[in-house]
């Protein structure tokens, strides 16, 4: 999926690398560029609905509701044609954004927090294009910001602004954040949770079920950077947990074999918990383009009526 960073915007935008996105600066511009590229490649199918806006004709087949037969057309063309109208798929999107200190770790750009902000902005942009209401909840050890889902350009700008202003700090309390969201989202909607999910898988599952049980469609974006997937430590390295301050000394020998197994085990546990809660689990690497995640989201979104 990697392409030269100098690929022109527009046709190639779904292939934009994180490095190039990092140079764009404006979160709105990034969201738009990513989404435009994504939609071109995703072949989003139009679904007919029941709005007042005419969409197309199609031939009548037995069993169709006769109320939608265009009799005027039948008089002119002596054919039974069925009138179809644009569908209304309006829903709510709430992005749960983890801004704990662990999201800001790493020398390489973008950080998980930055990459998550782009992802959230792209989701907001897509939602806005489809007239969905979008909202944002940022949290670390407690809920920092909550912008309830809402339509409109001003809401979109407010979300971009809030995403841009996030600073990594503190630990993370998923239970509190999900409970907060569950209390505030009375109607069913889509909840996109973006985090590195360094938490107990069982707690993670309980949090997802808290929203899933209320009818929300939940998609969990698990962000990992390259350093977390393939740690390159010296033989004897002292590691400090940025959130707890705890220090351990590790051996690269031991890590080289055990760490991938532990990471895979953790990821599998998260996936099982998400599946059990009826949620989607999407792992994203911060050195990969955003489009894969967005395609998944749109397909997931497309299943919604």
């Amino acid at each position, binding site marked *: 999926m990697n392409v030269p960073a100098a690929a022109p915007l527009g046709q190639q935008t779904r292939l934009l690398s994180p490095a190039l996105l990092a140079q764009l600066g404006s979160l709105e511009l990034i969201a738009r560029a990513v989404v435009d590229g994504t939609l071109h490649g995703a072949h989003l199918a139009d679904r007919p609905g029941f709005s007042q806006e005419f969409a197309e004709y199609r031939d009548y087949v037995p069993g169709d509701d006769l109320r939608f037969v265009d009799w005027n057309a039948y008089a002119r063309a002596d054919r039974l044609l069925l009138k179809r109208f644009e569908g209304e798929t309006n829903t709510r999107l709430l992005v749960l954004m983890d801004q704990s200190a662990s999201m800001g770790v*790493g020398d390489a750009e973008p950080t998980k927090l930055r990459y998550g902000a782009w992802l959230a902005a792209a989701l907001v942009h897509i939602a806005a294009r489809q007239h969905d209401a979008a909202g944002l909840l940022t949290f670390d050890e407690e809920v920092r910001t909550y912008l309830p889902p809402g339509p409109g350009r001003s809401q979109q700008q407010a979300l971009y602004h809030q995403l841009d202003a996030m600073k990594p700090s503190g630990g993370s309390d998923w239970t509190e954040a999900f409970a907060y969201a569950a209390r505030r989202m009375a109607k069913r909607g889509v909840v996109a949770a973006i985090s*590195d999910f360094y938490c107990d898988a069982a707690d993670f599952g309980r949090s997802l079920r808290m929203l899933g049980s209320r009818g929300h469609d939940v998609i969990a974006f698990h962000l990992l950077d390259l350093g977390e997937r393939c740690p390159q430590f010296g*033989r004897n390295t002292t*590691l400090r*947990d940025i*959130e707890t301050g705890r220090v*351990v000394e*590790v051996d690269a020998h*031991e890590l080289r074999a*055990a760490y991938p197994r532990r990471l895979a085990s953790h990821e599998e546990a998260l996936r099982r918990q998400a599946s059990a809660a009826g949620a989607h689990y999407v792992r994203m690497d911060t050195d990969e383009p955003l489009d894969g995640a967005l395609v998944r989201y749109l397909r997931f979104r497309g299943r919604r009526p």
Partner: protein
Amino acid sequence: MYGRAASLGGIAGRPQSGRVVSFLAIAFLAGLAALAVPLWLHRMNERAAAETTISSLMLMRETEEPVRTRRTLAHRVLLALRLAFLALIALAFAQPVLETAAGSGDDDRAVPAKLIVLDGSLSMRRAEVWAEALATAGSLLESGTSRVVLAGSRLALVSELEAATPSWARLDFAGLPNRLDAVLATLPEPPGGWHIHIVSDFQASAVPDRFNALVEGTLWPLALHRVGAAEDNWAVEAAIVDGDRVAATVASYAARGRNLAVALGRAGDDAERQRIDVSVSAGTRRNVTFPIPAAGRERVAWEVALDASDAVPEDDVAWAIQGAVDAAAVVLVAPNADAAALRFLTAALEASGVANPIRVEDAAWPRSASAAIVLDPGQLPTATKRRLERYLANGGGALLIAGERSQRHGALPVGGALTGSVVAGARRVVAVDDSHPIARGSWEDVSIRRTVALAASPGDTILALAATGAEARGVQADAPLLVEKRLGKGRALILLTALDREWGSLVLQPAFVGLVGNAVDYLARNPTPSAKAGEAVAIPAASVQIFDAQGQRVLALDETTRRPVVRIDRPGVYTVRTPGRVSSMAVHVDTRESNLQPASADFLSRWQALGAGARGKAALAEQAAVPPAAADANAETSLLPLAPWLLALAAALLLVESVAANLGRFDFRLLSFLGAGRG
């Protein structure tokens, strides 16, 4: 571990280079100070242990304690390896030796044969010392394989130890290795090689000033056995006739002062002796003068005797010959010589006192000329050249000294062609035949930078070489420096370097005066008025008879006709009869034997350590030695040099350190047992 390092802070260093490295040496201390470097680096490394901040330790929590333990262990091991490496290097530079009991060698290896060198010099004539030496040598003897060499002015194999008797001569250890080589060349080499045992009192005056003089020749395993002890001694160091008096020097080699009676009388006549009491302080010399009547042409041998009753009575008497031969008339031919060379030569002739130079400009030579010296002539006038040839053909002797002009001309007036100059850097002078009277004297400080090469002819004798060094002797870098040629009935000595400071330091050294004096004596066939016991003396004529004071012939006529030099071992006054002439010659003991102070233990340790690296590994294990400083001088031990082992161990440590320090770069699990059970 043995050595002065253990007791006094010094230990034998690299003897081949003559350099001493001790535990107090700067390099060794610097090596120890270098231990601080890894300590400091490890300390800094511990402080600066980099912390890496990561998102979560959730997936790493299980590795903490074992890794800390392993890391600490690895850290300590690396530090220990590095410290040990530096310490071993520093220790190796100190050249330590391990003192072990002798006889612990592997029986499977060939046992070297013992060559027992028994010091037969004057100082060993002390009865109790000689008895101790015989006992020591007897304890070393092994039937069938051991050989005994009696070392005095000459080395001689002794068939029966009891038959060995010390001489009156001096033993100089400086040339001993080469002389031993000459003796060993006459013996079949045993399978295990030789193990040299030297039994001696090891006088300080017998060891060379420069340690390198002991490194020459074949290096065999060596053991030194010191016998005897320092004793007070007094000696008549010199006695000469100075006009109407005899001047003598009384020397003290004692640690205390003493009043001594000095007597003068005619040799062999105890009556009418003059006596003078002198007080000699410890370690000093006193001059004593006795008036004597004029002797005219009569030869009188005066005896100066010291009533000391000391350890070495042989050095308590000296003789002075009154009415010695006049200085030889030496023709000096130097038509083109530069002023500086002529000045050097004239000064040497005057200083030697053996010659009365007569400079000639043409072929009109005085009839009384005893010898001729031709100084860098270039091309001689034809008449002068013919006169020189005629002089030599009739039995005369000439010293020819080459130089720039001779080199340019490409030939000497007699003796042959010069093939050009050899420039090979500074070389020292090595006497090829040290029994030749010309070779007497010390050449150690002479450095020769340039010589001319002489087209040699059969019968030429090389007396001295300009050599690059002991290890290079015999290679082309060695150049003849002094050559003797037989020309008709006469003989010519050819010095192949110029009397010029650019050609070498010969003219600046006292050896030059000795060389010129000896050459004139040799060429003029002067009877030598005085000689040292055991020293080579030039035969003053083609046929000579020498009688001792009792009228016994010590050198028969047929012996003198076969050899150009003789050696007289026993001190005394001898009568030398040559055709038409009778002269006297006093033979004295060498007063360097009078100083009974032993050489330093450090020197002897270094000398003995030479043998530790000698060829013959079997000999190394078997090597027995005596630490000269030890109280028990006869305890037989061997010194095993540890430096090679230390260096090998340091190399091994370096390898281990490299592997251990870089273990983390590879996916080895060599240390996995330390952290087993985690996953």
